[in-house]
């Protein structure tokens, strides 16, 4: 008992530190802005106009539709991939990691080479309008959902499948008794993530939707940039924060306690999904996923492959992307390690804070604080790293939390008995058992970070050029084909990382 108490106290301290760090970085973003707005315009600075309701309705509408269209098929595809094996299975999963790294404009261009005027599937879908916005959002988020759900299903104890087979469970019974209890835990989290990503979407919404499609993020951007109306930007951000926090709290209520049985670590072998109907359904779902994700990627590869140049600026940008990605992913993992062990809705909300509080608002606030050092490269890099780490946090947590949950169920009592705690527990229990989720979440954070443009656009670069910002720069100088080459490199880099992560994870798995 004594050991268990000690354990609890220690954890609370670390969690508290991680939570405080995240919370204070959010506050350090908001408070200087509030102060700035009040010092310039008084309280009257916080105001709103009627048009904001239309904006709100559209934001919610497109984000909700994108979420439903990504999360439900994502779950079904993940399940299909988990129980069916076929040649190319591993590569499909790796390719599903690539969209997350791509800047929005690269995706828009890739989509136009498939669905655009005078192209293969031109006219199949109204690319310029809500249809196109949803298509682009699904292209980004469906593979993300598949990967997150797939990771969760890897956490199901192998005995469960064996037992179900011995009990002659039908696929449906197996789904409700074995798979769903695991998915149920992360469905709200993944849905909330996708919803927030789509609510914050900017380039896709404007490019494909035009002025009719104005989201909250566009309105915030306009107030922050063109009008430099910080009061309005803050009010809009506040609406977004309240709205999203409400949603997260709501999804937290839906989330029930994990009831899975934590079994032994054995090679997961599945006995379900063998019937013709099940196989037909699974392969239809996999084909659907491949049909949405692969053609635009293929278009991107084929247009970029011939354009690739290994010039000093490309290498330089790749180096910056790689370095920033590495450090910010480590930071994200470090924070997530502590927050992911908590399942209360406050921690859940905190984990999503970088998506709930518009990064543009947060970065502007940080800038006000750091403006005396704004011309220093190191401060710019540090800020980019911090923002990227915060933005990756929710993704990392969605992968780590189920794994922690499983470990806790299985080993907490044992650890208490052995008085194993702190670093010893991490070394002997958590790290060996969590190699795979750790590597996968690191990969996701890394891919998110190398594809990110938010921080660098907001803070100015001071000579720091990453791969996505190089794409921007090349496009800005009429060098569209060079940009295609750089985008290809970015895609290949993320594909290689996905491959390496899987190899590493497999090699160090205890199975």
């Amino acid at each position: 008992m004594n050991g268990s108490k000690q354990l609890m106290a220690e954890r609370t301290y670390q969690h508290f530190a991680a939570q405080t760090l995240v919370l204070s970085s959010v506050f350090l973003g908001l408070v200087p802005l509030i102060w700035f707005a009040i010092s310039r315009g008084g309280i009257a600075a916080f105001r709103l106009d009627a048009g904001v309701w239309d904006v709100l309705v559209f934001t919610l509408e497109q984000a909700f539709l994108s979420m439903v269209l990504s999360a439900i098929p994502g779950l079904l595809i993940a399940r299909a991939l988990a129980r069916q094996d076929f040649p190319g299975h591993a590569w499909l999963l790796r390719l599903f990691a690539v969209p997350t790294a791509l800047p929005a404009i690269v995706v828009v261009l890739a989509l136009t080479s498939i669905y655009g005027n005078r192209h293969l599937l031109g006219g199949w879908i109204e690319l310029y309008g809500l249809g196109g916005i949803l298509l682009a959002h699904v292209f980004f988020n469906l593979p993300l959902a598949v990967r997150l759900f797939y990771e969760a299903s890897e956490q199901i104890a192998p005995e469960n499948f064996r037992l179900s087979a011995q009990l002659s469970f039908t696929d449906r019974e197996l789904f409700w008794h074995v798979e769903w209890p695991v998915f149920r835990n992360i469905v709200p989290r993944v849905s909330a993530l996708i919803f927030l990503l789509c609510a914050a979407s900017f380039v896709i919404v404007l490019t494909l939707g035009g002025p009719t499609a104005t989201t909250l993020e566009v309105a915030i951007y306009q107030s922050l940039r063109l009008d430099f109306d910080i009061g309005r930007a803050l009010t809009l951000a506040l609406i977004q924060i309240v709205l999203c926090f409400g949603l997260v709290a709501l999804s937290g209520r839906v989330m029930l306690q994990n009831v899975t049985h934590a079994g032994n670590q054995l090679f997961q072998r599945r006995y379900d999904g063998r019937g013709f109907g099940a196989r037909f359904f699974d392969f239809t779902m996999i084909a659907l996923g491949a049909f949405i994700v692969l053609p635009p990627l293929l278009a991107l590869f084929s247009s970029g492959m011939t354009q690739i140049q290994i010039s000093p600026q490309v290498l330089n940008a790749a180096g910056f992307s790689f370095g920033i990605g590495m450090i910010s992913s480590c930071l994200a993992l470090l924070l997530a390690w502590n927050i992911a062990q908590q399942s209360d809705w406050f921690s859940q909300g905190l984990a999503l804070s970088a998506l709930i509080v518009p990064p543009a608002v947060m970065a502007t606030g940080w800038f006000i604080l750091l403006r005396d050092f704004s011309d220093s490269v190191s401060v710019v890099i540090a800020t980019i790293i911090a923002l990227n780490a915060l933005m990756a946090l929710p993704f990392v947590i969605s992968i780590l939390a189920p794994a922690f949950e499983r470990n806790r169920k299985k080993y907490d009592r044992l650890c208490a008995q052995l008085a194993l705690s702190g670093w010893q527990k991490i070394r002997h229990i958590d790290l060996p058992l969590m190699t795979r989720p750790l590597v996968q979440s690191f990969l996701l954070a890394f891919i998110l970070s190398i594809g990110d443009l938010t921080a660098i656009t907001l803070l100015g670069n001071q000579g720091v050029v990453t791969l996505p910002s190089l794409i921007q720069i090349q496009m800005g100088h009429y060098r569209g084909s060079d940009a295609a080459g750089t985008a290809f490199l970015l895609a290949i880099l993320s594909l290689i990382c996905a491959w390496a992560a899987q190899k590493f994870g497999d090699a160090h798995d205890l199975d």
Partner: protein
Amino acid sequence: MKKILLTATMLLALGAVAQAKDVLTVYTYESFVGDYGPGAKIKAKFEETCDCEVKWVSLGDGVAVLNRLKLEGKDTKADVVLGLDTNLTAEAHDLGVFGKHGVDVSRAKVPGGWTDTEFLPYDYGHFAFVYNTELIKNPPNSLEELVNGDPKQKIALEDPRSSTPGLGFLLWMKSVYGDKAPEKWKVLKKRILITAPGWNEAYALFTKGEVSMVFSYVTSPAYHMIEEKTDKYQAANFVEGHYLQIEVAGVIEASPHKALAQKFMDFILTPGFQDNIPTINWMMPASATSAPLPSEFDKLVKPAKTLIYSPQEVNAHRRDWINEWFKAVNG
């Protein structure tokens, strides 16, 4: 891994290296510097004339530069600001941080002449619709023809809320149609396939063949003719005239390097600076270059008339005009 961390640490340390020479800090937009912009060459040329160092601080675009100044106010670290356009100078003036540039304004050769003693032009460009000659055989000869043209022939514009060219076209419509602008927007709307957040996105989709026309600059075809040796993309000449964008620089009054800053302003209108404008920044030079412009520039559209609002007019009406546009295209 160790190597990466080491590199990162070294990068972090770079910022702390002390500088000995007089450093002139110049705020500008991103595409002016970097590997594709004229910044590095201009820096080298200017540093030949002084025992000093030019330090570019680059921000997203002209609007981002202005916003940085708004955030920093009088504490700004800039000595010179380069990259605002005339749609932003009234707001920039109101910040009260700019001093006189001290250069003889008659040396600035921009359409309509120059009188402002606070901001000095370094280049200019008329906006224009650039079209794909393989898709359009009869380009519109006027804004009116563009507005009433075949709705099946789609165009790409930029959003005036997030893009300077986007704002440029809004002002162009307003300067030609005045109070009738909203109804003309409603007609034009049928032709608009894309209203992109920025010029980059709109132009990329245009060269991809998604639209047959894009809102850009008179000088855009020069890039394709010189760098890509193709006549495929040309600009349409409109009889109502073309809206003008003038890019300017200014000196920060409180700068500790004010003499050096004014020396830089003087340098702006010399060939050492201007030679780098036409074929690197792809804009028109604001004064003589050392050699005549490449012959491709002779083939560019020469606007019969220049349209431009004063900075004060833009500043006073921009918000209302954007709301008006927003209502028209959403109606």
